[in-house]
């Protein structure tokens, strides 16, 4: 019954689309913009998620963090007062935990923010983390071979003035030579560089491990002028013991501190919280981008309606010489779908290129699902918004269509 075969109609639609290049570009533009923004925004969301996950992985597995204040609220999100550190811990807490917990490694940590000077220049307000000898290995910060070493237990207990520089910091302080063995000055105190951490990669926003420095915690106490500990990291024996260890720690800490004065959490909990925020953000942004896809679809419908009017005589002629209504319907529908597919494909390409561009300064990653989603939605939009004009065209009476001026 279908006289012009699907192939013939496809060919004829392609010819008509190619003959009207400016119309084609204008029509596809809405879809192109919609698909591009959907892909870009989901790429950024996904890239962000992957970035955060990678950063957490580099913090070390099976780590449990004890920090002052309430970090999480009851729903698992971040607590509003989380950032305010009302209390700090002391070395007594660390020894207390060490005595009561078995089979774990406990690392206290504090942070001093200070300027670091080398004989070449000064780096302003650098985060200098004070900790113990196992902090380096547990957090993948220990220098690899050829780049010096982490400090020892003896150096910590004897307050030996040594320092390990982050990869970037070492280059900034000593642009033309190796930093190892050189002296740096922090708060008037001279420290010897004994190691350089491995490069941790590009970062955005928050502090980068590459721009930090690490010193024995006893040296940090002297620099800070007090013996406060801002966080305690407990490395559980394995993944399965994380939950029970967390419970034990909470019990021990409750003996001394108020419920709201400290938080015990592991990296997966933190990761889940951050990821849920990023997910909501990504969905919201994608939703906004999807609106432009719908607007693009309405654009296609408008142009197709105009095109039906503009081509009224052509439709009348086709009907007069033997096109039955469905042949006209299918032809217009195919044209609408081709236009949205061209728009969709161009949008995917632009979205991909855009993602490559963004990647150089912001984490972004194109996912197959976003491409499939964008392409599916754009062809669906083409069909849905193509139907109305196509139906209108197929119902035109041939005589009135031919008379149309």
């Amino acid at each position, binding site marked *: *019954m279908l*006289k*012009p075969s699907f192939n*013939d109609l496809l060919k*004829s639609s392609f*010819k008509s689309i190619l*003959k*009207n290049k400016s119309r084609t570009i204008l029509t596809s533009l809405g879809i192109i913009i919609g698909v591009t923004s959907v892909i870009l925004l989901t790429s950024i969301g996904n890239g962000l998620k992957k970035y955060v996950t990678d950063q957490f992985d580099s913090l070390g597995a099976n780590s449990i963090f004890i920090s002052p204040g309430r970090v999480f609220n009851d729903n698992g999100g971040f607590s509003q007062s989380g950032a305010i550190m009302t209390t700090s811990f002391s070395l007594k807490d660390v020894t207390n935990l060490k005595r009561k917990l078995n089979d774990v490694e406990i690392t206290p940590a504090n942070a001093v923010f200070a300027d670091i000077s080398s004989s070449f220049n000064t780096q302003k307000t650098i985060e200098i983390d004070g900790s113990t000898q196992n902090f380096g290995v547990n957090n993948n910060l220990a220098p690899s071979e050829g780049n010096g070493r982490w400090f020892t237990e003896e150096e910590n207990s004897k307050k030996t003035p040594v320092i390990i520089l982050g990869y970037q910091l070492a280059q900034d302080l000593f642009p033309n030579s190796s930093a190892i063995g050189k002296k740096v000055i922090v708060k008037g105190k001279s420290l010897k560089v004994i190691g350089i951490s491995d490069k941790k990669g590009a970062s955005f926003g928050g502090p980068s491990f590459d721009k930090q420095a690490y010193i024995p915690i006893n040296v940090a106490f002297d620099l800070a002028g007090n013996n406060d500990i801002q966080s305690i990291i407990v490395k559980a024996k394995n993944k399965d013991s994380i939950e029970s260890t967390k419970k034990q720690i909470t019990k021990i800490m409750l003996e001394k501190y108020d419920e709201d004065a400290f938080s015990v959490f592991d990296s997966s909990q933190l990761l889940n919280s951050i990821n849920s925020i990023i997910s909501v953000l990504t969905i919201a942004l994608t939703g906004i981008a999807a609106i432009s896809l719908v607007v693009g679809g309405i654009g296609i419908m408008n142009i197709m309606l105009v095109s039906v009017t503009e081509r009224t*005589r*052509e439709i*009348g*002629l*086709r*009907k*007069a*010489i*033997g*096109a*039955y*209504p*469905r*042949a006209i319907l299918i032809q217009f529908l195919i044209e609408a779908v081709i236009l949205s597919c061209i728009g969709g494909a161009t949008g995917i390409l632009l979205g991909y290129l855009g993602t490559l561009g963004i990647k150089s300064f912001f984490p972004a990653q194109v996912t197959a699902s976003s491409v499939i989603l964008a392409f599916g939605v754009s062809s669906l939009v083409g069909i849905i918004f193509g139907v109305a004009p196509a139906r209108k065209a197929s119902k035109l*009476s*041939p*005589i009135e269509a*031919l008379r149309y001026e």
Partner: protein
Amino acid sequence: MTKSLSINNRNVVLELKNITKTYITGTNSFNALDNVSLKIYEGEFMSITGPSGSGKSTLMHIIGLLDNPTSGEVILNGRNIAKLKEHQLAQIRNVTLGFVFQQFNLLTKTSSLDNVMLPLLYSDVPKKNRQDIALELLNKVNLTEKISNTPSQLSGGQQQRVAIARALVNNPKIILADEPTGNLDSKSGIEIMKLFHQLNEEEGRTIVFVTHDMDLAKQAGRTVVIKDGKILEK
């Protein structure tokens, strides 16, 4: 007398029986065609003429199966077409009728060859034969050198010749032409009429053309004069 006798001996290809076409605008109704009966014989060259608004275009549309009468019967090759569905009518138009219009109605930005091949898209003609058929017809209307030109690159007379080639492409029995010379200068008009005569005499095709020009109408073997929806003279 001899001519009308010979007509009576021929087969009737299309017959209109008591056709009335009424247009209703608001509360007024108006009969564009009023109880018109007409026989068209195989192989004849017939013209339909009359002043503007006389109903000659409406009559043409009913003959061309482009419009349905309000009452009356249209019988094509002995078959009453009243009960046919739209897609069946479309198929009959495609195979049995060839249309030539005053405004040519060629697809813009489309080559002569593709314009001529257009009706074949909706026909059973195998794809591999389509181009050859179109080329042969373009040769017949002396446009072999213009096959890849688009309508805007052709003169009015050339465009109408492309349109005639298109009307012939499915080898129809009847060619219907609505003011085919109306948009042409007199020289091109004469050429087009010559082409119609040639198609009638050499190939025996039935030609029906509508014109308001009495002199042109008289070139036909038979002239039907219509006024106020009624046939005055056959």
